[in-house]
């Protein structure tokens, strides 16, 4: 039995503790917003928050989450109100969309820790997240826009 919390709800699961958190989220909990891309922490599509830190859930055994709080894209906001989601819409960021959950979850940690990131800060925080459609220029703009919205007091 592994017990942890996902998007502020408690879950108790009978699951092999070595199973990557990614597959537990997707298959046991039906949270398919978190994506599989590489299985070896190379692409960032599976990024979620574990106690507020961005991790690659494809290489994190679910046992690592025991007793801790996991946040997935489904928990970023319930109504697209997170400043990053608003900025993503304004900059028309996604193309195929498959990597975007991971991009948003990485960006959310960046902005929380560094409300006015420079381009270099964005490079550092976002380089682990691959986008095959090439939305990087728009992701960069959207992060700056979200930072602007937050400093203008427009959001949490």
């Amino acid at each position, binding site marked *: 039995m592994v017990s942890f919390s996902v998007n502020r709800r408690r879950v108790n699961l009978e699951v*092999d503790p070595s199973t990557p958190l990614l597959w537990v989220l997707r298959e046991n909990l039906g*949270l*398919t917003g*978190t994506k599989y891309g590489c299985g070896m922490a190379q692409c960032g599509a599976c990024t979620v928050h574990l106690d507020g830190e961005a991790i690659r859930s494809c290489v994190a055994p679910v046992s690592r989450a025991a007793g801790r709080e996991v946040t*997935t894209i489904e928990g970023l906001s319930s109504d697209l109100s997170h400043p990053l989601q608003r900025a993503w819409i304004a900059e028309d960021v996604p193309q*195929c969309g498959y990597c975007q959950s991971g991009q948003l979850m990485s960006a959310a940690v960046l902005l929380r820790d560094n409300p006015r990131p420079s381009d270099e800060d964005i490079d550092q925080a976002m380089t682990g997240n691959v986008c095959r459609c*090439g939305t990087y220029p728009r*992701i960069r703009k959207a992060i700056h826009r979200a930072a602007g919205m937050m400093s203008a007091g427009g959001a949490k």
Partner: protein
Amino acid sequence: MSTLHMRRREFLQFSIAASGGLLIGFYLPGASRLAAAEEPSGSAFMPNAFLKIGTDERVTVIVNHSEMGQGVYTALPMLLAEELDADWNKIGYESAPVDAKYNHPVFGMQMTGGSSSVWSGFEQYRKAGAAARAMLIAAAAQQWNADPASLRTESGAVLDGANRKLSYGQLAEAAAKITPPEKVTLKDPISFKLIGKPEKRLDTPEKISGKAIFGIDVRSPGMLTAVVARAPVFGAKLKSFDDSRARNMPGVRKIVAVPSGVAVVADSFWQAKMARDAVRIDWDEGEMHSFSTGQMMEQFRKQAQSPGTSVRRDGDPDAALAQAAKKIEAVYEVPYLSHLMMEPLNCAVDLRADSCEIWTGTQFQTVDRAAAAKAAGLPNERVQIHTTFLGGGFGRRATPQSDFVVEAVHVAKAAAVPVKVVWTREDDMQGGWYRPAFLHAIVGSVDASGNPVSWRSRLVGQSIMSGTMFESIMMKGKQYDPVSVEGVDDLPYEIPNIAVESHQAQVGVPVQWWRSVGHSHTAFATECFIDELAALTQKDPYQFRRALLTKHPRHLAVLDLAAQKAGWGKPMPNGRGRGIAVHFAFESYNAQVAEVSVTDGKVRVHRIVSAIDCGRYVNPGIISAQLEGGAIFAASAALYQELTFENGRLQQTNFHTFPVMRMNECPEIETYIVESNEKSGGIGEPGVPCTAPAIANAVFAATGKRIRKLPIRMTEAL
């Protein structure tokens, strides 16, 4: 029929049961679609196959192309909404089921490719909207007892001269009783309100909330997951397998042999994958067991020394070469490439005695359905494909052999359960259907005053069309594959003597269209070589091209626009160089200028300026996004990507050995669109071809070294 109805009820009941629980949902996009077509429609007004209007004012556009990032779920609805005079805020989208009425009007099958969705839908979707609008007006005219000609439409409503108003939702039921018009009048482009505007993509909310359903996300009660052990070498045959360890692993339900290998079917992906890795398989590796790309390229170089099949011959290139004042020879080489969509391949199949339902992200519905029906032993009409969002396509999901769909049907059949086959990243990369490796041997010459007089391109590489169902159509009467030579057979430069020759290599590696297809290598070779000719005559590469393009105003316009916006000729920081390229592909013209520097043998691309003439455009925001993405896709290939084989085995497995450009390496990209009233061209692919040559030419400008091989390695530069 009854199966499908029953299954729909099951699905609905399950949804209700699950909705109170913890986040658990089962996602079957379009699960009710077959049923919906047979039952009274939930929507009040379905004037044709492309839209429905509800009494709730919702206008749903049925999109016959797959959404793989290129924006068809926004651009095609814009076309329809324009003529309907719909309220854009009430527009939704739905993917079309497989049906002949959703065939590509030019290619004659339901598919997404060739950068053709917008131009092929340009009239189709506008006519569908215009027909619906005429019926709504007729319905309002009946209610008001008015002359239809006296009525107008605006933002989802019909109005009369006194500004009385009936919304489309209010009119939907009455409009459903009107006979569709035989002829419709389309708007004069001058009065377009939506077409040409950068409307935001409609699918963004789904894609930033985790709600968008891709093939890999499809689940249904009782559906198991399979991971397949496939041959390590192309063409290898299964001899025997030992599943004694795998059989007893947790969650494993079935282990079955299928034509492509051994499928492990389990309760979950991870269980299936772990057990798959524990199956020991003996393969008869066949003749590809010793294949190496190094030897293959050696063979290509030898082949290029002899004349190939003639594709184009202007003047007398051999005589001109013999008399040339100066000549130059160059050999360009490009490797096999993986499409590397972010979402690895997958396909879910529910095979019953009399029906087969498939959920997958495909670009090739008609072909896949026929192939699946054959594998399932059912007539075509008993097979339905529900197209999900595609986590990237780039051509891989348009497989003439329908490999990933057919395999999933075989697994479902052998295991006798509803099953979703999921490929790991390694499976996906090693699964074949790559952009073919190519070699271009080019000889060119100039006269004493520095004007080019001859050009001979000899290409060696595998045909994509050969051996497919398209061979007879595409290669009719030709001894070469037009797709291999596209982009060099129509070399636009004014050179009196031109020869293009093709050698079709026979190699057992499955190859396929990869974003921009033949243009992905022909533009690299031709646009680098024209630069080499310019250098031979000590001319500016931009001006040199201009002088040879006087009869090609659309090439010239994008070339000038890119050069001007990039500040061609203006000073740059030390160590930087600019390179330029121009190319016509998929009915659009693109030019790019790249700005690079090279430090310690490492190429850094700082800036790319891309100018496009894609005729009349629909959504400039999407066009910019496609140009940005196209340049990044191409830059990844130019700088990092190569698939190589040793002993028949692919040497690359995942992102660490087949890298993709990342945020910290991404250049600034500026995009510009030429205003045009010409017929619409493509946009998904045309932004790819110019990037590699623009970067390679910029490396020359920065370092004096020529790049003739991709990916760029400064140690191999000349």
